[in-house]
């Protein structure tokens, strides 16, 4: 009988290829590479933006030029040459579709390969999809249903034109242009994204969903999402991402701002599987994303993320708990394999009294990957009786990967209660043999163990997303055991 060792298991994991590596041949309209004021004006012009927006972009660009790329994250990579990127790439045959049936069949095929066919999505009644391919929305569904409730859900580009006042009022209020290097870059060059507004007291009747996808070679994706939940409203927002496999690295620098006014609740779920690079560590997406939400009185924001992709991830969905009794939650599963590097976590900024935050982070590392949790819990002097609970668990597969935890706690109010728990474990050969002996093969056994490990977070995802996330976890970690 052949010996099956952990080394074999590791090899299998390394040979796993990116299953979503394909390229959709849709005609594109791409701006020349490079970054300067002319390009920014050109982007703004292509999108027929009002003047205030053009000025806003130029201001961001001016500030960005004075900033330096951050180096504090626990990741190593060659800095992308930002002058070699094209900052605008939109499918040139881009009429808006009234129904999904009119969508380019190749695009539908793309969705099929993703396992999330639009057909399937339509069947999942209650899911409205705004598809962002290379930064331009090509299809939005269920618009009419939403319109009846006064809900605005559209591309950022459209929002800037049609709901200018709303956008102007809120954009950049949670993540200022100068927040960080990549947020500033995004503010200058963002090409599209999604905008969502839920009016006072309205509970959004369906999950809102956006799909992002990088298609064109040598492009960066800089989408910008703004979700505003007015007083007493509720919305659950889903975001999915994928990118075709390419040899060169692609840059993704998105900004997501959430605003939950008094008594409002926003649930924001992400499943991210950008191309992670091949098993040698070539290619893959650099995912440098800034996500932050602001909670007013009694408001609540929940971030749930399943991160399986990207070569380098640098991402900290955060909550500013400004209002009294506001609640911030962060539930995360981050999987790294081969040469992937992830530095992800959250910031919970407690400003108001009786604010509460929960952090559950599950990191899974395999291959030669490095997986870091970085989190900040900050209690300001006037945040009386604030509470935080953090739990960071790491699961290792093999001997060449790493798991790191960087928890930062700053508290300036004595009444605060802060708890932090952390564990590190390894998938043991004994666990795998136990499963084998019950008729469960090694591939399935790993999936079972990883799902068990991640359960607390998977349970937070909306049903249809949870199924997809489980599938992704399996794909990310399993080799084809032959």
């Amino acid at each position, binding site marked *: *009988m*052949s*010996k*099956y*060792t952990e080394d074999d298991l590791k090899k299998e994991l390394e040979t796993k290829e990116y299953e979503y590596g394909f390229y959709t041949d849709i005609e594109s309209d791409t701006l020349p590479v490079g970054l300067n004021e002319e390009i920014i004006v050109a982007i703004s012009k292509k999108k027929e933006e009002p003047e205030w927006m053009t000025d806003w972009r130029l201001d961001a660009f001016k500030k960005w030029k004075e900033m330096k790329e951050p180096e504090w994250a626990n990741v190593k990579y060659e800095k992308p040459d930002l002058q070699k990127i094209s900052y605008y790439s939109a499918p040139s045959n881009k009429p808006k579709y009234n129904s999904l049936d009119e969508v380019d069949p190749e695009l539908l095929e793309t969705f099929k390969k993703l396992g999330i066919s639009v057909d399937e999505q339509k069947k999942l009644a209650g899911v409205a999809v705004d598809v962002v391919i290379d930064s331009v929305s090509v299809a939005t569904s269920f618009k009419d249903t939403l319109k009846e409730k006064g809900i605005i859900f559209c591309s950022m580009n459209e929002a800037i034109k049609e709901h200018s006042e709303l956008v102007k009022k809120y954009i950049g209020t949670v993540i200022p242009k100068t927040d960080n290097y990549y947020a500033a870059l995004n503010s200058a060059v963002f090409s599209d994204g999604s905008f969502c507004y839920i009016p006072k007291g309205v509970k959004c009747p369906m999950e809102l969903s956006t799909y992002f996808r990088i298609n064109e070679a040598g492009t960066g994706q800089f989408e910008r999402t703004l979700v505003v939940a007015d007083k007493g409203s509720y919305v659950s927002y889903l975001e999915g991402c994928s990118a075709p496999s390419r040899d060169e690295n692609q840059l993704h620098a998105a900004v997501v701002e959430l605003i939950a006014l008094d008594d409002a609740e926003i649930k924001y779920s992400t499943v991210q599987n950008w191309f992670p690079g091949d098993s040698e560590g070539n290619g893959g997406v650099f995912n440098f994303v800034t996500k932050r939400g602001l909670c007013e009185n009694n408001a609540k924001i929940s971030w749930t993320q399943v991160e399986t992709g990207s070569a380098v991830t640098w991402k900290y969905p955060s909550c500013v708990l400004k209002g009294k009794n506001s609640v911030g939650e962060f539930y995360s599963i981050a999987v790294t394999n081969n040469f992937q590097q992830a530095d992800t976590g959250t910031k919970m900024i407690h400003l108001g009294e009786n604010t509460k935050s929960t952090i559950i982070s599950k990191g899974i590392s395999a291959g030669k990957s490095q997986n870091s949790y970085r989190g900040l819990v900050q209690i300001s002097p006037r945040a009386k009786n604030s509470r935080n609970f953090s739990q960071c668990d790491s699961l290792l597969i093999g001997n060449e990967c790493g798991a790191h935890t960087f928890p930062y706690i700053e508290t300036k109010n004595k009444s605060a209660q802060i708890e932090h728990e952390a564990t590190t474990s390894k998938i*043991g*050969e*004994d*666990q795998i*043999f*136990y*499963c*084998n*002996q*019950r*008729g*469960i*093969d*090694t591939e*399935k056994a790993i999936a*079972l*163990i990883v*799902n*068990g*490990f*991640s*359960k*607390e977070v998977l349970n937070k995802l909306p049903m249809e997303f949870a199924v997809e996330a489980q599938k992704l976890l399996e794909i990310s970690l399993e080799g084809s055991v032959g």
Partner: protein
Amino acid sequence: MLEIKNLHAKVEEKDILKGVNLEIKSGEIHAIMGPNGSGKSTLASVITGKEEYEMTEGQIVFENENLEDVSPEDRAHKGIFMSFQYPIEIPGVTTTNFIKTAINETRKAQGEKEMSAKDMLQKLREKCDLLDIDQKFLSRSINDGFSGGEKKRNEIFQMAMLEPKLAILDETDSGLDIDALKIVANGVNKLKSKDNAVLVITHYQRLLDHIVPDFVHVLFDGKIVKSGGKELAFELEKKGYDWIKEEIKS
């Protein structure tokens, strides 16, 4: 059903089994007894195909098939089950989910469809009743925080669900008080039929008061040195293993 011929096996370059011969037929209960370090648990691990155990000579034939190149999961699919001496914890995976996966993987391997949720629930309920297990037990993570008795009972519960042809009970009595021992033994007896077989591996005779074997074998230094009926177990209990060692020498 199971035929072991001249089995030699080593672990980490150390020879443990040095020529084991054993035949088990349907409907039989066999017990393997022996002092610590005689190779009892190694025998169980080799039969189930655990990777660190290398077969160097001889063969294991199960249902007329040589198991040499058969993976542990395929051996399970063919109907070999082992109740572990130290059952493994898998946090976050409920007993129900674990068993459901095990059953469906086995069915898949046999070219059958997955068991419907309805049938699965019914079967779970039935086997819980049979083994006097509270159904709440099923929604706990498998073996996670279980007491010694609960772990062993869970093993027997899995055996009941999987309905193996050959069940190997590896030191199932270790760490059990007398009440737990009776419950476990009672479960095994209820599951016993003329179509399956049980191989009990134990250091002590006390489990054999409750699971009565047809044959008792004494394993010593990697070989079966004596076989007999259930009375052999009593004799060992009374006299210890030393007289066997003497017998071998002479």
